[in-house]
């Protein structure tokens, strides 16, 4: 009920803002990638504004047209809006610095309301408006719908946030959508990374695993960890599990403690992770605990002494050197206190990757919108090797998932502190 009320208030606020902006829409510069200093931009309106003059914009030489498709309204707009803002921010900065080989990049934005059908409709409209690449969508479902459409056209596409395997690989046939990339890592990748980290940085020889059965997230990370551990020669001495909703981990932790492993890998969420670590310490287990991004805010769920030394990986570390400038720019441009979530920096990197592809096609002297141009963009992204973004360095694997560094966060003195990129 409370949420409904909030939603209603939010909707009212958006309507009010809309009416205010409707008044000044005429003053907004048309055709350029406008960055409006508002979190709740009416993107449908912008899209229609831009589509109105798109026909001539597409024809203009010296401009590269791309589309941003994402849910800037609707239930999950809190994900879509930061992504949209970061994309706009990136290309505004790029254009201000001279664009790509002197050409400006025009981002036409379309709202898919988080829906796959809407995303495809938006894409078809964008195609008519002469775009040559797509950034989007934001939610997994809409992104898969969009990917089906872009794959037919071999249109370069990158998503900042959709983590499902099915985005880049068709799940029924296993066929890779060669034109679709993503800037975020998929869940199992974290398991692989943490196994590497345990061996290379922590010098671990033996490991125990504690995971949640029936959870895609937990089992995905666990399986990836097991595979990588075997490859790295990390011996798994014990595997324990719990069923969703269970809180009593004493027996499992006593088993783990008796095997005395160097590390315990816990691909579970913060609440259970806190309980597990408490139970482990009481059972006399002194191993270092490792987790995935589900560990975020675990500091509130166990004491500082119990957590000391535990590490987890995250897609983004707030406040590090690489993202500091982005955070400052984002907050200044959009008038907010802090970057709302990790999707904004990832969207900034997605834009960077797309710009990298576009640059390669431009360097080759191809004409925007042609099939060769699109293929050149895709090839460039596919073969990029350790290109530095703000959330890590990027290369892509055979399934078009990024091979990137993760941020290692360590629990120190009861705080979650960024340790290193790995």
């Amino acid at each position, binding site marked *: 009920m409370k949420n409904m009320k909030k939603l209603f208030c939010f909707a009212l606020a958006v309507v009010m803002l809309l009416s205010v902006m409707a008044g000044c829409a005429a003053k907004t510069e048309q055709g350029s990638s406008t960055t409006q200093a508002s979190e709740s931009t009416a993107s449908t309106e912008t899209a229609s504004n831009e589509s109105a003059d798109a026909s001539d914009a597409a024809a203009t030489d010296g401009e590269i047209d791309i589309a941003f498709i994402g849910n800037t309204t609707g239930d999950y707009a809190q994900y879509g809006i930061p992504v949209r803002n970061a994309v706009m921010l990136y290309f505004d900065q790029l254009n201000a610095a001279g664009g790509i080989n002197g050409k400006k990049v025009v981002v036409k934005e379309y709202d898919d309301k988080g829906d796959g059908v809407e995303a495809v409709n938006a894409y078809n409209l964008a195609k008519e408006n002469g775009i040559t690449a797509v950034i989007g969508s934001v939610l997994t479902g809409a992104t898969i719908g969009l990917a089906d459409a872009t794959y037919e056209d071999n249109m370069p596409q990158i998503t900042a946030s959709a983590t499902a395997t099915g985005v880049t690989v068709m799940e029924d046939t296993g066929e890779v959508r060669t034109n679709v990339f993503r800037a975020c890592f998929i869940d199992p990748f974290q398991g692989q990374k943490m196994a590497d980290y345990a061996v290379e940085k922590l010098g671990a020889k033996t490991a125990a695993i504690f995971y949640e059965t029936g959870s895609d997230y937990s089992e995905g990370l666990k399986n990836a960890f097991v595979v990588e551990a075997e490859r790295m020669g990390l011996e798994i001495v014990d595997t*324990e599990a719990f069923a969703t909703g269970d809180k009593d981990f004493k*027996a499992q932790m006593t088993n783990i403690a*008796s095997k005395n492993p160097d590390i315990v890998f816990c691909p579970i969420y913060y*609440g259970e992770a806190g309980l597990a670590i*408490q139970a482990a310490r009481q059972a*006399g287990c002194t191993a270092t605990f490792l987790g995935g991004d589900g560990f975020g805010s675990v500091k*509130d769920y166990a004491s500082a002494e119990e957590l000391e030394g535990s590490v987890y990986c995250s897609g983004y570390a707030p406040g590090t050197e690489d993202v500091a400038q982005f955070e400052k720019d984002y907050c200044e441009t959009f008038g907010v206190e802090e970057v709302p979530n990790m999707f904004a920096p990832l969207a900034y990197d997605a834009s960077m990757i797309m710009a990298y592809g576009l640059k390669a096609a431009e360097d080759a002297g191809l004409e925007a919108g042609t099939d060769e141009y699109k293929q050149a963009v895709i090839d460039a992204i596919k073969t990029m090797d350790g290109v530095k973004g703000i959330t890590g360095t990027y290369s892509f694997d055979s399934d078009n998932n990024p091979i990137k560094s993760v941020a290692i966060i360590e629990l120190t003195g009861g705080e979650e502190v960024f340790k290193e990129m790995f």
Partner: protein
Amino acid sequence: MSLFVSQLFNGLQTGSVYALVALGYSMVYGIILLLNFAHGDIIMVGAYTAFYAMTAFHLHPILSVVLAVVTSTLLGVVIEKVAYTPLRSAPRLSLLITAIGISFLLENGAQLLFGADTKSMDTLVPGNVSFGSVTISYTAILTIIVAVIAMVALTLLVQKTKLGKAMRAVSEDMGAAQLMGISLNKTISFTFAVGSALAGIGSVLYLCAYSQASPTMGSMLGLKAFVAAVLGGIGSIPGAMIGGFAIGLLEALVAAVGLSVWKDAVVFAILIVVLLVKPSGIMGHPVTEKV
């Protein structure tokens, strides 16, 4: 071997909490034949009381524990007066439905008051002690000792005091006890008070073990304690203790051999088996229906 001993203590620790809660179930059932399904939620209220006393008001842990026990006791008595006393002559089913209603009221009330998220605090009694290769946490030792003391005190109360005698009399035959001059209302209220006080102690021991409080924490705990009470023989005080420890040990054992995912299933399978094979439980007396 040392692993087995460690797991034994894990089981005893969990079992202590189950036993304390099961006692409340059993005593109330023994006296007014009511399955008090709100009992688990009294534990939840006790846990929140202790949690806020320690984190928001920074009271001394001992004081917080006392506060939690007092709150649980009062809550138990109030529930009995408001919800159960008016229904004493109503069919037993009405009483059971009321109990479920109270349980929902408490759970949802807690969500309204405290929010639906889990509240977490630092471990109350950190650390452990090693005997050779056997490691036992201080929490486990404390839990087992407190539970045993509470059970001894309860047994003395029921067997040696006048009020205890009254309780036994009422549970034997309500009508006859009343004719002998025993105040029914007073005795029943007292039973609820004692049962709820045990739940209060249980809630604090639960906080020691898991240091988390959530609005629905009482439902699963309550159900398992109910299974313990049935296993021991519902209505029987020593039965509830035995049942509680048995369920706790069984859970630890199941989890220790790697079947932790099946833990709940095993516990509830026990309920089914007991009801099929020996419905009166380990310590219960089979009741012969009089015609």
